[in-house]
């Protein structure tokens, strides 16, 4: 006869074991299993269903270049939509053996040739009816665009060094472009392009420079995107196109820049430079601002000084040279005026004076300066002067307000001084009074 203790232990073993000896224990097991599996089941519902495939089961163990881990594949948008390796490579992912899975009978294609890749992707991505099932608002003209691009044209002539779909989008872990880790997210586009375009050895056979990424990285557009996080800032594809990537061409540079910098383009169009640059065959905007290394323009860029770009074409004494000097002087005069007013207001504020109205007006003055710097693109001193005059009036007003605040501060200090004098008079009077009544006390008398 088993002891009580043995029986208890035995019952526990049965309860957690896999062989229920009583109906009640069976029920207990079922309930326990349900409680444990239910949350797991719910969790599984929330994750995209990655279809099981024998391909990944084997290939997750291989090193590069045939290795594809579970994690990599699970991150791919195609896997998340229920597609399998067979969609691109053919074969049968349900077959456990390599011979079965990778059989010619199952349509296995192996690794596609580079020249075939765009057409292969296009088989789905250019099919509007097919793509509608997954995302109706996705474009389906990527392949058509690609064929107009430099990459597409060269690929058609057999150049396998150019970019094909997988070079930019990745191959087994393709993320949609809106995800921050996607290689084609706006924040990462420049890095992706630079993988080839900054590689001097790779680009040796092509007659193009490899300094674009370096230049862009120093540019104000890069700063806007990466430092300020402004996703509307331009990256490579904004000006060059993404699938139909090609340099805009000298004649079209202005069109590209003017999509954002419309005002400057409008002014430029009615300026003498438009015809002049067209005749010279230089791209309008990039002649002064460069194409990739577009740095923050300064007032020193315009004028007749060392850093001025005007002197690149204009010689001393010619009308353009004179105009450049005038424009530069206008801008610097307003800038200095604003700085002077700012200093005075700072001083007043540090002394505790309240100058919020003047600060608001100052902002308007700075707006004038920004406007004037845009009007530079008309290359007409008269127009620039119109804007700077408005700004000068404001800077003058705020400067006066600052001086007034300082005068008020001095008035307060004078008032304080006078009051302190009266207080000191009272203090001395009191002290003398105290001395007198105390000496009266000391020298007797009740």
């Amino acid at each position, binding site marked *: 006869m088993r002891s009580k203790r043995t029986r208890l232990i035995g019952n526990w073993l049965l309860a957690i074991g896999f062989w229920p000896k009583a109906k009640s224990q069976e029920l207990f097991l079922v309930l326990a299993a349900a409680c444990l599996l239910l949350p797991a089941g719910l969790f599984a519902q929330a994750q995209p269903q990655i279809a099981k495939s024998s391909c990944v089961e084997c290939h997750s163990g291989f090193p590069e270049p045939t290795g594809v881990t579970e994690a990599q594949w699970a991150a791919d948008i195609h896997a998340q939509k229920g597609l399998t390796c067979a969609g691109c490579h053919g074969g049968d992912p349900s077959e456990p053996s390599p011979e079965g899975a990778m059989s010619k009978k199952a349509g296995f294609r192996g690794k596609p040739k580079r020249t075939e890749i765009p057409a292969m992707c296009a088989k789905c991505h250019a099919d509007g009816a097919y793509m509608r099932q997954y995302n109706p608002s996705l474009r389906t003209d990527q392949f058509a665009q690609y064929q107009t691009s430099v990459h597409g044209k060269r690929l058609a002539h057999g150049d396998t060094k150019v970019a094909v779909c997988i070079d930019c989008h990745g191959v087994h872990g393709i993320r949609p472009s809106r995800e921050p880790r996607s290689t084609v997210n706006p924040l990462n586009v420049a890095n992706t392009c630079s993988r080839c375009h900054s590689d001097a050895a790779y680009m040796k056979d092509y007659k193009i420079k490899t300094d674009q990424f370096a230049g862009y990285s120093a540019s104000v557009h890069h700063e806007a995107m990466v430092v300020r996080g402004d996703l509307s800032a331009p990256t490579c594809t904004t000006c060059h196109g993404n699938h139909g990537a090609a340099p805009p061409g000298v004649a079209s540079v202005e069109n590209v820049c003017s999509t954002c910098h419309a005002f400057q383009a409008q002014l430029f169009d009615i300026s003498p430079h438009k015809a002049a640059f067209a005749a010279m065959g230089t791209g309008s905007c990039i002649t002064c601002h460069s194409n990739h290394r577009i740095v923050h323009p300064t007032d020193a860029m315009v004028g007749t000084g060392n850093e001025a770009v005007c002197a690149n074409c204009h010689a001393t004494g010619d009308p353009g040279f004179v105009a450049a000097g005038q424009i530069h002087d206008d801008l610097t005069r307003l800038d200095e005026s604003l700085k002077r007013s700012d200093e005075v207001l700072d001083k007043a504020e540090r002394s*505790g004076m309240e100058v919020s109205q003047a600060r608001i007006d100052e902002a308007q003055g700075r707006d004038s300066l920004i406007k004037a710097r845009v009007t530079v693109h008309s290359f007409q001193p008269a127009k620039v002067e119109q804007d700077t005059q408005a700004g000068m009036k404001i800077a003058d007003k705020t400067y006066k307000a600052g001086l007034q605040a300082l005068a008020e501060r001095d008035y307060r200090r004078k008032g304080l001084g006078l009051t302190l004098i009266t207080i000191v008079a009272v203090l001395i009077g009191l002290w003398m009074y105290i001395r007198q009544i105390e000496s009266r006390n000391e020298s007797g008398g009740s």
Partner: protein
Amino acid sequence: MASVPEAAPPTATHSNRLVRWLDERFGWEQLVAPLRHKTVPVHKLSYWYFLGGMTLFLFMIQVLTGILLLLYYRPSANEAFESVQYIMTQVQFGWLVRSIHSWSANLMIFTAFAHMFSVLFLRAYTKPRELTWLTGMVLLFLALGFGFSGYLLPWNTLAFFATKVGTEITGQVPLIGKPLLIFLRGGEEVTGATLTRFFGFHVALLPGITTLLIATHILLIQRLGMSVPPGQEAAWKGLPPNQREMPFFPNFFAHELMAWYVALGVLGALAALYPWELGSKADPFVAAPAGIRPEWYFMFMFQTLKLIPAKVGPIDGELLGIMGFGLAGLVWVLLPFLGGDRYGRRQVFIRGLGVFALAYMVSMTVYGYMVAAK
């Protein structure tokens, strides 16, 4: 010639007729007589007697400047900040009235604390002065309440968040904490309702209670006279009888008037050279800026709470801190009853407690500011 009354100020001859007129109608002489005979003990530590009067003087400045501010201030969330800005920029000498009000508030709380500590160390709280100490402690708490409620009124970012944190801590008190928080805030959160409520506290409720308590406090002092610190008693008793006391009017008051005029000068200089800042308008939807801290007189408690670990055994750390300070406050209020005889041994222990408390408060305040400065 008849003896010139010693206590008569130099300009008395002009007001003699006025005094007679008042006396015939108010019994003026009878009212004023005790004041004429009021004296103040003379010893090396007599100057400490100034602190009480200084606190009263600064309170009167607060009432005066406060009433002036009331003429232009608007206590609603929409307009409070703008009305203070208006006072600082548009109203003639508004900057002066407002800056004096803000500076004097801080000075008053400082002198109130100094007065309390000096009474403690000079042992002026023992029998029969227990009630004076009691009313004084309540006045000190009221002064802190004035500071806390007034700080919110300009409705700037720092004040808004300091109030949020301060009332949040109050809400941690067990049992009554939550109802107290809702009572203070006028709701669950700090809103315009809180502003209106704090305004009511600041200009009506607190002044009313304070006036009554000040009257009681001063009455008690008049009845009981000034105490001589035990340490000075021997020297004081050694003085010839006619040199032991100084008439309050005009001698002591003349000294006190000097101190008050110095205070006026200091306030004027502070207001003119370091005007109180406006800050930026409070926006409840903006995240709290870094470095929120309460005013300096709450800093030692704030810093202590920050240093206590989140959990001390089973008890929540912040709760422990609050209860600790509550207990300390209670002990402080009850000191006259806990200290026993004026010359007893327990008084030495209380002096030690006082030194520790002062050192703790000062060092925690300094530490709090050093940490905030980083």
